[in-house]
């Protein structure tokens, strides 16, 4: 199993430039009581750690730091766990180097 390294993703994301489309999340999690294994895997697989467990044990997303890699889409769209879109044109992450 994973041994935790002290890595703060927030520090990594802090380097990036974003234009956040306030109030228009481009990814949504389907309401659920108990997360499916696919949904649960997003807690660790998302490289920007956008997925977190809330205190009711449900998976929530806050997509502000999303780097638009598409991993959660590949995992969660076919199972119906999430609804995935691109941000509106011009919004989202803005790579200076890429």
């Amino acid at each position, binding site marked *: *199993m994973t041994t935790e390294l002290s890595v703060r993703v927030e520090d990594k994301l802090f380097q990036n430039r974003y234009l956040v489309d306030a109030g228009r999340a481009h990814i949504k999690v389907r309401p659920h009581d108990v997360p499916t294994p696919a949904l649960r895997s997003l807690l*660790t697989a998302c490289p920007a750690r956008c997925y977190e467990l809330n205190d009711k044990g449900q998976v929530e997303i806050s997509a502000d730091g999303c780097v638009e890699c598409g991993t959660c889409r590949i995992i969660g769209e076919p199972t119906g766990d999430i609804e995935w879109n691109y941000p509106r044109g011009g919004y989202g992450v803005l790579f200076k180097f890429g």
Partner: protein
Amino acid sequence: MIEERFDAIVIGAGMAGNAAALTLAQRGLKVLQLERGEYSGSKNVQGAILYSEMLEKLIPDFRDDAPLERHLVEQRFWMMDDHSHVGLHYRSDDFNEERPNRYTIIRAQFDKWFSKKVQEAGALVVCETTVTELVQDAYGKVIGVRTDRPGGQVHADVVVLAEGVTGLLGARAHLRKIPQPDNVALAVKEMHFLPRETIEARFNLKGDEGTVIEAVGTISRGMTGMGFIYANKECVSLGIGCLVSDFQKSGESPYQLIERFKRHPSVAPLIEGSEVKEYSAHLIPEGGYKAIPQLFGDGWVVVGDAAQLNNAVHREGSNLAMTSGRIAAEAIFQVKSRRDPMTKENLSLYKTMLDQSFVMKDLKKYKDMPTLLHTQSQNFFLTYPQLVSKAMQNFVRVDGTPKVEKEKRTLKSFVSARSWTGLFGDAFRFARAWR
């Protein structure tokens, strides 16, 4: 949005889209290219190695003004365990040639330049516009696109889907399936800035010479994956990617993986004291030949990563993207010149031409490789690197043990880890997949 009708609409301004739009515009077609990012490249991530040959076919004099970093004179392959690496190191002064074969680039900057060439050739390039849907007629023929701009519907004879590996449109219109988790790798990457002289000293380079390191081993923790370290002029691109399905299974986190890679004793000295200016992530198509979807239909073609045209064995993607984009455009131009309609039948010319190119020939050659590496990941990415490293240590450490005994010990460690049948089986399977 835009009232007029176009000969072709190209979705996406990455390597494939830019190659297609450029080729179409150069041949006098009326082209609209749509890109969701603020500028071409603002959403794109790559290592990145640029292969000259495929770009030269599009822009012969690209060296005059393209933003290139370093031309490569050296390639290193590392097989790593937790404390060491065994390396193959190829360096040749032959690569200090007048028209170098490979360069490192920074994608966001390169794409911006590429896009300027597309505009100069006469294509209409509209950024900050996400295409939300393909417009199809009653018979399923693609006749245009809908965008997120008000009244944003535009029509064209043919649509070139150059939307990259996470392309939504083709999948939504049921032209192809979305990639399976075991057909795509997730790569995370950081840009480490250092003074130019420091990079040159650490990587043993002078002037604009460059080097790249590709690494496999325990760094991917038993997952099918690879790390990379590329020297640019004033920064080092460093990253690691593994199959999405392996991330799912292992519960490993991508950011922990890259952190561990950075702290490895072979890697840390190369980036010591650097300033990290960007953290990015992107998928890479890894399914190879068997994962290639239907490439053309009534009113559409698909090119580049969206079509899984990516050679994971050789870490080549952008050159396949550029080549498929160019070939698709040439096929469209031929159909157009004959005044034929953009039907599935006529557009099959794209596939015929692509089959004759290195793109399909290379992917076909390695058609069994993805399955082999994916199913044997523990052996290839964990067991063997550890065994090789132990064997090397045994070989170089001088401790009074007679050499005959050392060799016996090394052989024994291989056989006990994989058994004779295992070893021969792996070698056989590998050779067959490579052939």
